[in-house]
């Protein structure tokens, strides 16, 4: 596999010279973005099916066998719908907002490693880059809410801004613990640091278990998913920030939300669940390619996302703020100190 890639690179290098680098980078970006978009499409179907089964319904089953063509039908429907721009809306920002939501969700994938050395950019400050990119997604939501010139949308935007800023801090501190344990901000090195003879017991979710939970829950909050979907809150503020959006502009918000979910799943797998490493480094397991393990871990976390949505009622806004500021942030601060002290003792095995 690696030899083949190197051969392709060699041929391209000879053929195009200095122009090869941009071509190669665009190719790498496409190899990541196209599967993400397909996954988003089928994640929506999976969500409807899974929640359907949990609620003893069948879920979509009309378009294609077992409803497998449903995402295509949805996509075509959204493409052909009219994009309505409200009279009082700020047109430029109204159109820019969905794009601003989707771009960070896709840009963050640049540093995500899928196997040893398999990333668009093997950046040293990868972890920081991820944090920076995920914190930008909120702009699309705020701008959408403001530009729509609608009370519901504006309320959604304000809720979202406050919520994301709060949970980002907890998320950041949880990642500080990962950073301390791995002594690196390079995502590839973080996965390598979890490699040991102990298999899955070497992964960071064992010493950093509270941080694993904090990260996962904050991840649900960051992506505005139930039970933290106060920015949309269809029963309180109709659909929140995207109430005025229709057709493709709405679809972009939808795509961004699911792309963000997949991103959080990938990051949780990489930082806490050993990324592409097999659970045990023994014969049948370590012969399976690393990509499979990463995708398997991501699927489990994505299933959790769907499970949460089918299980928990929406948080009340003040409860949500309390959880973020008064529970998660102190907990993460304490755990940073605990990990720091723990690492000075001989009992630190990771």
């Amino acid at each position, binding site marked *: 596999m690696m030899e083949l890639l190197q051969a392709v690179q060699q041929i391209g290098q000879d053929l195009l010279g200095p122009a090869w680098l941009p071509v190669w980078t665009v190719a790498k970006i496409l190899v990541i973005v196209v599967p993400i978009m397909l996954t988003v499409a089928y994640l929506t179907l999976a969500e409807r099916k899974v929640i359907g089964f949990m609620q003893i319904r069948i879920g979509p089953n009309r378009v294609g066998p077992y409803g497998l063509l449903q995402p295509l039908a949805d996509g075509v429907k959204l493409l052909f719908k009219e994009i309505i721009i409200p009279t009082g809306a700020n047109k430029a920002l109204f159109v820019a907002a969905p794009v601003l939501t989707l771009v960070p969700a896709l840009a963050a994938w640049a540093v995500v490693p899928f196997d040893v050395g398999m990333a668009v950019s093997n950046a*040293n*400050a990868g972890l*920081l880059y991820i*944090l*920076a990119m995920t*914190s*930008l997604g909120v702009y699309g939501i*705020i701008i959408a809410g403001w530009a729509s010139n609608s009370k519901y949308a504006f309320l959604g935007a*304000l809720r979202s801004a406050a919520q994301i800023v709060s949970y980002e801090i907890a998320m950041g501190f949880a990642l500080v613990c990962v950073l301390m344990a791995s002594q690196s901000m390079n995502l590839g090195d973080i996965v390598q640091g979890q490699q040991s003879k102990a298999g899955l017991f070497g992964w960071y979710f064992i010493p950093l278990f509270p941080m694993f939970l904090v990260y996962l829950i904050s991840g649900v909050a960051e992506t505005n998913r139930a039970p933290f979907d106060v920015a949309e809150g269809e029963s309180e503020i109709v659909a929140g920030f995207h109430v005025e959006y229709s057709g493709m502009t709405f679809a972009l918000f939808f795509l961004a939300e699911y792309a963000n979910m997949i991103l959080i799943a990938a990051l949780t797998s990489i930082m806490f669940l050993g990324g592409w490493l097999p659970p045990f480094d023994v014969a049948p397991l370590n012969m399976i390619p690393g990509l499979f393990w990463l995708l398997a871990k991501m699927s489990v976390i994505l299933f959790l996302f769907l499970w949460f949505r089918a299980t928990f009622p929406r948080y009340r806004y*003040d409860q949500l703020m309390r959880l973020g500021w008064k529970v998660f942030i102190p907990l993460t601060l304490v755990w940073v100190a605990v990990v720091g002290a723990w690492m000075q003792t001989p009992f630190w095995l990771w």
Partner: protein
Amino acid sequence: MISFEALVFYLFAALTVFAALRVITVRNPVYAALFLVLAFFSMAGIWMLLEAEFLAVTLVLVYVGAVMVLFLFVVMMLDVDLAQLREGFWRWFPFGAVIAAIMVFEMVMVLGARQTSETGAGLTRHAADYSNTKELGRLIYTDYVYPFELAAVLLLVAIVAAIALTLRRRKGVKSQDVAKQVAARREDNIRIVQMPAEKQMPVTGDQESEKA
């Protein structure tokens, strides 16, 4: 022929200057905040060019990701009256001009004092695996530990002051005490009342006609 690096620098520099100018010239405060975001972004690009990737990403993370979000949050909620804002512009202009002149003077002093400012010849290039973050951490916690700690204490004082300024206990607020809610037991709130089953009275013709 200018190098690719210089081209990128001029692009980001032009963007920064343009965005910074728009921040103060644009009429809508929300646009101004968004242009400030753009200015931060292009500045981060320039820092990245200086191989200061840690600072560049931190700039985006802290200023764009958190500070400006809260800024926008406030600006969007304000009902800004432009006419009122313009009032007294010329009255305060001298003060603003003096402060701006002092700031320009300070910047010139700081930047002019470094030999590196002339050509950048004093800078060394580092390999791709050189960890900017580690180097920065080492310096902060060794050579510059006192200024660093001082800054930390200052920030802490600012945090405490900000909270102390806004913290006030109001009476009659019906906020929930979470500890009390969690500690609630079934026995405290529910009373099982035993009562004999009610017997249904036979319906008479009179009542039926009344109902209808």
